[in-house]
């Protein structure tokens, strides 16, 4: 496989510029109970060949971020109400959905959590993988199927020659996710967004799929956004991590720095909640309270009702991401008391 395909966009992008730059992204959903601000000022960059992990629990807005980038927000309920998503020299927020869609597949591709419902049950997998070649590149049917076969081989489906004629329900969960990956990398995108790619899979299959993703990235040099609720799954693959809570990024930095020296009490609480990080037989140290209600977020820092470090200021003022002196250059956290949290080690 060639590492790069000539695409017109490439010329205008300086080599060190981010592939994708999300700035101050805001997304709202209108529900029967009222308007929900699902994303509130999310910013991050992804560079070529780099993997960033977006981590958070349910309702933190991690999947919404992916949907917003791909213009897949459910209509008419969800809409982007502010910020920008710059890819190459365009802002995907202002671009009509039709034009964003044109970038999908060739420039940015995505894989989803549930590989069974993500594949169309009534078409053969070969047909589905060949579809982008046929409809986007105008390649004739036979050649497209040959390319699909190549891809199936590449993602490690045994006996691909025969199985290309099978339907999705005839494959196991892990194989289905491999098929999804084959479909996503078909047009050699520069950025791959993986939304909880292994959540529906068994542990052994999960590690295989993660390895496959890492290998493909090394081969193609694409940028990758890994969305997950599992801090362990991404640790091997991602270089940087962003932790989300209630629609905001509360901490970001290199994954080692964030995991070894969490500067936000939420990150710290998450890490301490994981059973494997605790000595056997010892009590876990969970975060008290429950997930925030997006319809009625607490004032100030959304985490303050569950935070052991909270002070009055946390109730009144929303903390912004900052990097105090002495931290690693990329490490930022949205907490007034990061110094105290760090000192707690």
């Amino acid at each position: 496989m060639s590492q790069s395909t000539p695409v017109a966009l490439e010329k205008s992008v300086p080599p060190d510029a981010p592939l994708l730059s999300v700035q101050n992204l805001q997304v709202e959903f209108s529900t029967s109970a009222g308007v929900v601000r699902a994303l509130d000022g999310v910013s991050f960059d992804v560079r070529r060949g780099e993997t960033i992990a977006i981590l958070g629990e349910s309702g933190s807005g991690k999947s919404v971020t992916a949907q917003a980038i791909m213009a897949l927000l459910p209509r008419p309920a969800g809409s982007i109400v502010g910020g920008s998503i710059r890819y190459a020299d365009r802002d995907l927020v202002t671009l009509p959905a039709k034009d964003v869609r044109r970038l999908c597949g060739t420039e940015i591709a995505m894989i989803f959590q549930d590989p069974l419902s993500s594949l169309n049950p009534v078409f053969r997998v070969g047909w589905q993988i060949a579809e982008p070649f046929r409809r986007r590149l105008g390649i004739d049917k036979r050649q497209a199927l040959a390319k699909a076969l190549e891809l199936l081989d590449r993602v490690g489906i045994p006996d691909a020659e025969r199985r290309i004629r099978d339907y999705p329900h005839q494959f196991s969960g892990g194989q289905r996710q491999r098929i999804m990956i084959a479909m996503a990398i078909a047009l050699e995108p520069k950025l791959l967004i993986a939304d909880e790619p292994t959540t529906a899979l068994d542990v052994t299959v999960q590690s295989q799929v993660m390895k496959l993703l890492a290998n493909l990235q090394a081969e193609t040099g694409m940028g990758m956004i890994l969305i997950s609720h599992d801090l362990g799954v991404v640790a091997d693959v991602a270089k940087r991590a962003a932790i989300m809570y209630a629609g905001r990024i509360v901490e970001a930095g290199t994954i080692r720095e964030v995991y070894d020296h969490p500067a936000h009490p939420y990150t710290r609480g998450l890490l301490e909640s994981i059973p494997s990080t605790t000595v056997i037989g010892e009590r876990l140290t969970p975060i008290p309270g429950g997930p925030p209600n997006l319809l009625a977020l607490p004032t100030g820092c959304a985490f303050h009702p569950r935070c052991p470090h909270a002070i009055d200021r946390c109730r009144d003022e929303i903390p912004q991401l900052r990097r105090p002196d002495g931290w690693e250059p990329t490490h930022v956290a949205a907490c007034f008391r990061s110094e105290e949290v760090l000192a707690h080690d």
Partner: protein
Amino acid sequence: MLGYVARRLLLAVFVLWGAVTVVFIVVRLVPADPAVLIAGETATPEQIAALRAEMGLDRPLLLQYLGYLGKAVTGNFGNSYTQNVPVTQLIGQVLPNTVLLAVLACVFAVIVSFPLGLLAALRVNRFSDRAVTTLSLLTQSLPGFWVGIVLMLVFSRKLNWLPSAGLDSPASLVLPTITLALPFIAILVRMTRSGLLEVMGEGYIVTARSKGLPERTVIFPHAIRNATIPIITIVGLEFGTLLGGAVITETVFSFPGIGRLLVTSIQVRDYAVVQACVLVIAVAFVLVNLIIDLLYGYLDPRVRLS
């Protein structure tokens, strides 16, 4: 697939047997003695007894049933009580007309309703959606026989554009076809709309979009192929309603079809004809649904391969 076909065939045969049996039982519930009905009021008891023996009515019920089953299988329904000609002949004269009417109505309904349902689903909750759904709900609420009467009143009595009764020319088919198709259209539009809406929320539609396919391609073939499956099932089930509608439509337009034959036979208590007509209609329903089941297996690989 072979197992699936075998299962469906077996089920169809079973249902047909059940239908034949139900008709046998129901007709035996008739308070009047068929021999009396045929022989007429003036017949002597001896004549009636002779007729009973001839018709096999004096035999035990089980033998009667078995004989009846055998005849039903060979398509022999005996003679009409009132016209003294084979029932098969009477039905043979009118059945093609009804088939023609039903097929025309079906084709017309599909042609009209599919684009409308598609439009409503793609413009969900907008004006065009509201207009289409309201209109189809209204159509569904109109009594079919009344629609026929109104159409007849307007287009043949007042405007004199189309014939009001019988089947003398292709023009005679226009009003019955529309009358029969209208409620069918209403149901199909709604089913197409809701079927598509449901499919449009599925994961594989999101996948198709994330592949960068234009919306046109997302809908056709991705959404349509999946939405067709439930729609086809509904078509099969509603085909029964269509057949029932044919009975009424044919009566309104004095259309020489099996429905009208059925109603007139009921009026003159010609139960030999009645039971044959009911059976023919039930067979038609079962056959259409068998075809649809097989089509279903073709459209949905999960059914075919399980």
